[in-house]
């Protein structure tokens, strides 16, 4: 330790207690804390200030450093996850070493969570004392710089992924766009119109899709999934599993002759893209503008795969010999510097609410089904039909299905109100039916959204404020017979109403993808209770994650409409670009190191490192740590039986001192 200290002269600690406006000051007695700090050993300066993170605040620290009053800095303010960077920089600018610094978190961990002023102040003092007694044993450190690989991987080919990919590619970066479905386009490709402008979804999306296809900087891998991710910011290695589509992508020209030629004369398989409203053949393209426009064979239903006795008319008819039944899964491995996750969402499974009769009554549909139905390119060519083929004379649109409900999802899905209004408009337009909207609260925050609501109010659509209780087919009176009856309280009138309708649209909410949890583990990021990927900071780092170099775009981070997804995709792209253009990343120096002369070669540590950063050097007879591979968890240090391993910024000594400090005084 004395060695460490001598590198920076005898310790002179400056303690700076922040009021954070009143955020800290209103529960913690800042002056008392400062006085207390002044009384601690090695403390030569103790000051309080309204906003330490402000320029003048930082200037105070820098001045004290320049005046040689201090050579170590403790700032008692917010969480280190918030401002450690800021103050380390300030320390460096002032001529100190950025790591002769320690932060005491007296806001998130004290003032914001404590009621009793006295106890809050005591706790703050304890944390300050801990920081001081620890920082005395800090040593100057340097950050390692590692270069950032300029390529980027984008996972998910919905509108968010597409937009991010084009932004990066246009900036001249090489992009790998990975999509699990046979085509990109995501949910947006399924919609007919988009709110509030009612412009045609396909018209604005498909140009972007083909741009992706043709962009020289974009490698598009559809029908593919990320299998494995290793490495770290700037230097990720990603393995991608490329599922066989049994059609050579480079050969197929998308003439679709194979599909006509298929021995199945009529389509029999429920069509995923049309959410089961229509049928497809075993060889198919999801939809006419699919990108890439390459056929896929579904081995589950293809006769050849089931019996190996098909006459393979598809292969015969193909002039390019693109059909290849021998294709197998390929693993592609690439190196990228950053990753953008845009894996999107899935819609709520309406069968989970039995009272709404989805799957029981033929004329109860989900909003996504209706999106397809009203889509001119959809299964009904844009016609809204009931199960019996007739036009509905009355339609009920039920909001908040699978949202704002403790039994399903507590959160508001954010897009349903607006798309319900859109569907109300389209249904009215296509069917002239009586359209009822049943809502709890009408949520239309967004540019032109409230205006759109107002427009619908004019279009004599009925609005009933009340969450639908049940949908059933029993009649109380004549006009209800043969219809679906909505039972709901019109809460604005305070009366329970029974409203018979021909068709019900369930405005299902948004949910994390079924495999979101596996995905986030692959990329080593966290998620919220509900399973949405967790951003680094809800306000200040909304597209970053706790894993550097991994960014979020679109609905995988939480329910979002198209404009927000695109905006976030742009932001994620910008973050990635910033990382790439800086060209390097500075790694936290909190890595482990081996004092090789003290190592007894017991081998305890070697197996413990998940990154293979520790190897045993048989010539030195010592375990050696590869600083570049070490990520600084400290597991090996904690288990080194003879204390030969240590961790920068978390040496045994520093932690023991922190423990002493946190308990010694208060």
């Amino acid at each position, binding site marked *: 330790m004395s060695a460490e200290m001598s590198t920076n002269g005898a310790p002179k600690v400056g303690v700076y207690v922040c009021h954070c406006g009143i955020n800290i000051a209103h529960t913690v007695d800042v002056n008392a804390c400062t006085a207390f700090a002044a009384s601690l050993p090695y403390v030569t300066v103790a000051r309080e200030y309204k906003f330490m993170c402000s320029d003048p605040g930082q200037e105070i620290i820098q001045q004290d450093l320049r005046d040689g009053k201090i050579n170590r800095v403790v700032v008692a303010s917010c969480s280190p996850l918030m401002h450690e960077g800021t103050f380390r920089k300030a320390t460096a600018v002032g001529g100190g070493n950025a790591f002769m610094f320690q932060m005491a978190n007296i806001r998130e961990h004290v003032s914001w969570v404590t*009621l*009793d002023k006295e*106890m809050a102040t005591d706790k703050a003092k304890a944390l300050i004392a801990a920081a001081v007694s620890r920082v005395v044993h800090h040593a100057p450190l340097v950050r390692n710089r590692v270069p950032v690989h300029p390529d980027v991987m984008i996972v998910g080919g919905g509108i968010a992924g597409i937009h991010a990919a084009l932004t990066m590619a246009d900036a001249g970066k090489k992009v790998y766009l990975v999509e699990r479905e046979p085509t990109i386009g995501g949910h947006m490709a399924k919609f007919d119109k988009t709110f509030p402008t009612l412009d045609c979804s396909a018209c604005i999306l498909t140009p972007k899709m083909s741009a992706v296809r043709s962009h020289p900087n974009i490698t598009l891998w559809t029908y593919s999934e990320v299998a494995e991710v290793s490495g770290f910011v700037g230097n990720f290695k990603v393995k991608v599993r490329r599922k066989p589509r049994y059609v050579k992508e480079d050969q197929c020209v998308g003439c679709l002759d194979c599909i006509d030629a298929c021995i199945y004369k009529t389509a029999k398989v429920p069509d995923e893209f049309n959410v089961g409203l229509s049928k497809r053949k075993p060889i198919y393209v999801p939809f006419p503008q699919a990108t890439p426009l390459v056929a896929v064979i579904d081995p589950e239903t293809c006769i050849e795969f089931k019996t190996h006795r098909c006459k393979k008319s598809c292969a015969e008819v193909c002039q390019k010999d693109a059909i290849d039944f021998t294709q197998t899964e390929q693993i592609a491995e690439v190196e990228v510097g950053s990753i953008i996750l845009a894996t999107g969402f899935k819609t709520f499974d309406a069968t989970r609410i039995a*009272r709404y009769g989805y799957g029981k009554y033929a004329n109860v549909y989900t909003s996504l089904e209706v999106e397809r139905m009203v889509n001119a390119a959809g299964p009904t060519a844009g016609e809204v039909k009931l199960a019996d083929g007739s036009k509905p004379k009355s339609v009920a649109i039920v909001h*908040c299905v699978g949202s*704002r*409900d*403790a*039994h399903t999802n507590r959160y508001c899905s954010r897009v349903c109100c607006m798309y319900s209004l859109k569907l109300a408009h389209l249904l009215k337009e296509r069917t002239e039916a009586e359209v009822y909207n049943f809502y*709890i*609260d009408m949520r239309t925050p967004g540019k032109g959204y409230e205006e759109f609501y107002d427009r619908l109010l004019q279009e004599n659509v009925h609005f009933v*404020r*009340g*969450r*639908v*209780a*049940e949908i059933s087919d029993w009649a109380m009176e004549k006009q209800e017979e043969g219809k679906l009856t909505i*039972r*709901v*309280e*019109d*809460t604005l009138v*305070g*009366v*329970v109403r029974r409203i018979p309708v021909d068709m019900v649209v369930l405005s299902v909410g948004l949910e994390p993808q079924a495999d979101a949890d596996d995905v986030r583990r692959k990329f080593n990021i966290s998620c919220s209770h509900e399973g949405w990927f967790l951003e680094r900071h809800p306000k200040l780092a909304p597209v970053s994650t706790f894993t550097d170099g991994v960014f979020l775009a679109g609905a995988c981070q939480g329910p979002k409409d198209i404009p927000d997804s695109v905006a976030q995709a742009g932001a994620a792209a910008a973050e990635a670009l910033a990382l790439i253009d800086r060209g390097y990343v500075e790694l936290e120096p909190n890595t482990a190191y081996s004092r090789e002369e003290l190592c007894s070669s017991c081998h305890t540590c070697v197996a413990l490192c998940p990154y293979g950063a520790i190897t045993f050097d048989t010539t030195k007879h010592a375990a050696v740590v590869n600083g570049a591979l070490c990520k600084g968890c400290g597991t090996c240090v904690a288990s080194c039986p003879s204390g030969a391993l240590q961790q920068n910024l978390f040496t045994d000594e520093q932690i023991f001192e922190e423990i002493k400090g946190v308990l010694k005084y208060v």
Partner: protein
Amino acid sequence: MEQWHGWDKVSYESDLDHQFADEITSIPGGEKLFSCIQCGTCSGMCPLSTYMDFTPRQIVAMIRAGFRGEVLSSYTTWLCASCYSCTVACPQEIKITEIMYAAKRIALRDGVHPKRFPAQVLAGEFFDGVQRTGRSNEGPLLFRLFLKTKPLKMLGYAGLGLGLFRRGRISAKIESIKRKGELRTLLKTIENEHWVRRSPRSEHKETTK
């Protein structure tokens, strides 16, 4: 000339009772009252809401706002058949049925329940019967009930009573348990317990030190 016979519909803070909500939330099951989002699912589910003077949703709102008198004297709680449709469907997991019970108990305790419905009479009869014998005796119970409430209608039901009697599905005989003393001691001890629960809201006011 005609005079305007309107009335002042405003409700003054002084008319409201803000402790009422705490009283309700303090009962087991009442905890979540304050998370109500007034969606009306309860009323929509309720098979009896159509006969109520206030829908269950309104009752919740009124309790929250402190309309003690209105709630306790309303018919709503007495129309509740406790079928729990509201409770299981409530998106905020508010146990509305329990809240109805709580309101009923308070109304009976304070004697402010609506006098028209015999529901509370039934409850009372039932209560005494069980206190006495440990069991409820439907025959005598119904009999007394009708005597108390609508003697005239008795005739209308005489047929039914007779039919039940003939089919051995009802009898004038009073069923009762053997170890009555045991039950009495049990209930006595409970009675003497002063059972005070605190509403989560008042809990919230002073978080653990």
